[in-house]
């Protein structure tokens, strides 16, 4: 694991979508005038025939994509997470998920990664909102390589997918040859005292916490739960049965996101204790990314503290 290389996962999307578009002319990008910041520039340049920009009109973008999908296209609607989930929400429900159309919603600026943009652009509710819509798949990759692989997996998957990327650069934790499967958690480390289930930009925090815990004699299993819907229930149940002490970590409201998805399984099992680390049901502000995480206790130190408490 290298701490020195950092890349935004939106760049992983931007690089992979060009490859996919070259391989399959049915793959289209539908931009809403924020293509530059969502990294579709290379696609626009390389594949102008497969590129649409419908202006600052997200609801229409969702509908246009649905119509394209009925004609055999595989459109990726590209915007920021706050808009791709909430501005488009009912269009995603009615015209994409209800008819189960092959549309991908690919969003940069997930969580508090658009830090200095402030609360309007930070997206802390999106994954929770979208996971309640039937037929939707909800994914947040943990680094650049995971983003590339999961974008490809989403393109190959027949049905609606919501993909969430970071604006800011985050450490690269995977290699080019790592493989990913939608709905299947990746176990990055095994342990017997506590399980840390994280996704997106917080996976690296979970790994750092596990490292620190190891030095203190506590062994932690770390899962990258890149897909929160469908949740890898089997992997969560294994944590319940093998360990019984679980911490979830996410750059999302603790309501309705990864923590809630895992809590559903834990509560029904009645056999494990769970602590959720995430945004504390409060709006953000313009501030450095690390500060925003810290304001919500999304830190290595807090994960370590909770793990030590659980492992007692």
């Amino acid at each position, binding site marked *: 694991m290298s701490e020195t290389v950092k890349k935004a996962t939106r760049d992983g999307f931007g690089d992979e979508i060009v490859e996919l578009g070259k391989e399959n002319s049915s793959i289209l990008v539908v931009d809403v005038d924020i293509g530059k910041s969502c990294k579709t520039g290379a696609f626009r340049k390389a594949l102008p025939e497969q590129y649409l920009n*419908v202006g600052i*009109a997200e609801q229409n973008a969702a*509908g*246009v994509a649905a119509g*394209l999908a009925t004609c*055999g296209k595989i459109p990726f609607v590209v915007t920021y997470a706050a808009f791709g989930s909430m501005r488009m929400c009912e269009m995603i429900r009615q015209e994409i998920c209800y008819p189960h159309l092959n549309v991908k919603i690919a969003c940069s600026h997930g969580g508090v990664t658009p830090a200095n943009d402030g609360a309007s652009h930070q997206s802390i509710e999106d994954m929770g909102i979208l996971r309640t819509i039937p037929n939707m798949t909800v994914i947040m990759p943990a680094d650049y390589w995971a983003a590339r692989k999961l974008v490809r997996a989403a393109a190959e998957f027949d049905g609606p997918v919501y993909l969430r990327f970071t604006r800011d650069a985050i450490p690269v934790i995977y290699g080019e040859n790592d493989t990913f499967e939608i709905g299947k958690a990746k176990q990055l480390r095994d342990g017997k005292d506590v399980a840390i289930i994280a996704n997106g930009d917080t996976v690296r925090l979970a790994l750092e916490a596990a490292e620190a815990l190891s030095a203190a004699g506590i062994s932690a299993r770390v899962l990258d739960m890149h897909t929160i819907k469908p949740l890898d229930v089997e992997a969560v149940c294994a944590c319940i049965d093998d360990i019984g002490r679980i911490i979830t970590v996410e750059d999302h409201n603790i309501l309705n996101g990864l923590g809630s998805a895992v809590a559903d399984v834990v509560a029904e099992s009645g056999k494990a204790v769970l602590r959720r680390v995430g945004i504390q049901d409060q709006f953000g502000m313009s501030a450095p990314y690390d500060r925003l995480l810290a304001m919500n206790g999304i830190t290595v130190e807090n994960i370590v503290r909770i793990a030590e408490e659980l492992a007692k």
Partner: protein
Amino acid sequence: MKETVSVAQLQNICIDLKKNIISMIHKAQSGHPGGSLSVAEFITACYFREMNIDPKDPKWADRDRFVLSKGHVCPAQYAALAMKGYFPMEVLDTLRKEGSILQGHPDMKKCPGIDISTGSLGQGLACGVGMAIAAKLDKKDYRVFAAVGDGECNEGEIWEACQTAYKYQLDNLVVFVDYNNLQLDGTCDEIMPPIDLGAKFRAFGFDVYEINGNDMAEMVAALDLAVTTKNGRPKCIFGHTVKGKGVSYMENQCGWHGVAPNDEEYSQAMAELEEQYVKC
């Protein structure tokens, strides 16, 4: 291919269609008769003259598409689909019933011949724009016919879709605006003044054909013009219509937006429609 059918024949098909609308809503004791009747001439002209479709192959890739953006008036489209042979006529009796392919609002996964699920107003037109773009990208000749309501034009997404239709030069898109001037809660002028709705479409770059939308001869002429004018501009057939057209007690009555006729009203409606057949 365009079917050779006279205006008089189409008028009579439209009366059959309207009888089926009334009959299925009466059976279901639920549905939207007013708007179904006002859009009937457009639907008849599309399905029985203009559209290149194959009821035996509903998903034929090169077919013309129909988008009922004002999805609540689906009884009119269901009647057309049954009459074209997409499914048996008896199925019309299952409208809104549990397990039916004829959902309260159109469901493309359940009902053959429905090209896009609709029901939430303002959204269908954008989907139609996507279909028309796909035709252009694939250099195919199929066209997209869409019906939107006047009240539905309150929705911002309609205008977002119009912008896109102009930008991508969708002269393969024909939008019918069913201007019956009645919404659910009152007249359009009362609920949200449309001002000059036709002029709005013109301002958004559409070629606009303003007609009496319940006059079959005018409908056919407008459609002919709309599909043959290949100038890169999307088409709008702006139809002045009467909500509930053809059933005297429903005409121009806001109260008949989403109410089913009782037995007596049903008999009267059917008798009145029976009188409207023309000699061919």
